[in-house]
């Protein structure tokens, strides 16, 4: 799931300078689960922007906002409301903002959220980054824990020597990723895997923008 966080309201307002009539769009998937772009958040945003003198011309949730065809269909159906608006505020991830912009070419779209990471839902409202989408999964060698993500430095061959009390040198609250990997491998009797030298990552697999066509 894409984890998002709402921008400060003053940042959103600053992107809306000169725009009076605003159309709000949320997303029924990730942003709803993150409580950044679901029904409740749209209502709250309507109130907050209303209090700042903006008129909300309409608000809707697309399922999902990253699906370009669904976005286009949505705006076909809601042409009137959108055409009355000076701007659309997208309470979606960065992809949603762009598919909305593609789907409504004439109206400017403002992002209300910052997209943070691909996250695991640990429980309601608790999201953790486990994978950075590097393009070459190696976790068979590391006990199913991704060092590229969980080690702050993304090291592939063991701990950096900076961990103290098994915590990372940059944040003493955060577990040292390589200690977690070491313990997992040791528990499984697979410590030998840690002794093999891992090759450098192939960053040509991460050249952006990426595209997949089935």
């Amino acid at each position, binding site marked *: 799931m894409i984890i998002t966080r709402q921008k400060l309201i003053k940042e959103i307002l600053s992107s809306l300078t000169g725009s009076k009539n605003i159309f709000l769009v949320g997303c029924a998937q990730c942003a709803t689960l993150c409580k950044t772009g679901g029904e409740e958040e749209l209502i709250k945003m309507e109130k907050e922007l209303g209090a700042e003198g903006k008129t909300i011309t309409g608000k809707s949730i697309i399922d999902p906002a990253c699906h370009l065809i669904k976005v286009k269909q949505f705006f076909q159906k809601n042409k009137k409301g959108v055409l009355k608006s000076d701007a659309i505020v997208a309470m979606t991830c960065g992809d949603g903002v762009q598919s909305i912009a593609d789907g409504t070419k004439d109206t400017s779209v403002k992002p209300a959220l910052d997209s943070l990471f691909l996250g695991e839902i640990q429980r309601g409202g608790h999201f953790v980054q486990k994978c950075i989408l590097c393009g070459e999964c190696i976790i068979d060698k590391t006990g199913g824990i991704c060092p590229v993500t969980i080690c702050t*430095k993304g090291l592939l061959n063991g701990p950096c*020597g900076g*961990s103290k009390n098994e915590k990372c040198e940059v944040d003493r609250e955060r577990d040292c990723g390589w200690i977690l990997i070491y313990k997992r491998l040791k528990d499984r009797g697979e*410590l030998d895997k*840690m002794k093999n*030298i891992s090759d450098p990552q192939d960053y040509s697999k991460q050249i952006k923008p990426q595209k997949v066509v089935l």
Partner: protein
Amino acid sequence: MSLKRVLESKKFIVTTEAGPPKGTDISKMIEEARPLVGRVDAVNVTDIQSAVMRLGSLVGCHILKDIGIEPIFQLTCRDRNRLALQSDLLSAGVLGIENILILTGDHPLSGDHPQAKPVFDLDSVQLLQVVKKLTSGKDMADNQLDGKPNFCTGAVVNPSADQIEPELIKMEKKVKAGAEFFQTQAVYDIAKFEEFMKKARPFKVPIIAGVILLKSAKMAQYMNENVAGISVPDKLIREIDGAKDKHKKSIEIAARLIKELKPIARGVHIMPIGWERLIPELLDTMEV
């Protein structure tokens, strides 16, 4: 004598370090380094130490070499990708800098430019392999080099890491990757260090023990709380705290640690952490 020759000899090795300035005034660095000429086997030049932006280690090494000191070029994985790392290694080769110390490097978040993009394109084990490959005449993409450098390459290890087993696994990988010597994090607990040396013996690689000049009780407490693998015993903290002349006591403690380390380690690496001016006096005091 080159560090390589010293490593091959039986001599007890003494190295220390110099930190390049934040700015272009190199006078203090030179002034502090001059008294070391002919007195230590080599001097490490730190690479943007603690991720605080400053003059580069390669230029620092060149300056030391010019005044007659054998430099050790510290190279971290933090700031350069594989193109820049290999290029700087070739530059070192051309400048006649033969000793390289490979480190991971502190994260930019620890330094004075926390917004910087952390690189870590290669890690320390992979970079050691790259150094070895360059000395064989090829770059890491297997392209032939026109002229190859000669290096004596070292790495670092933390003998008092909380979890010693993963530290030793990584050390073994570094040896396999081409590390010819090790310099360690500061040692204050001799018994613990001795235990580590026993475990590292099968790697058959020279280990140079780190010694940090203890400046005050406050510094000791800071290191105990914040620096990985350093635990200054209470007895030493009380000793430095009770001393009127901190410089004198600091030298006395360091000289005592060095004496105790002499039968155990291949040498010592003295880190003055701002008290560079005390090194000549420590060299006079210590019995090696």
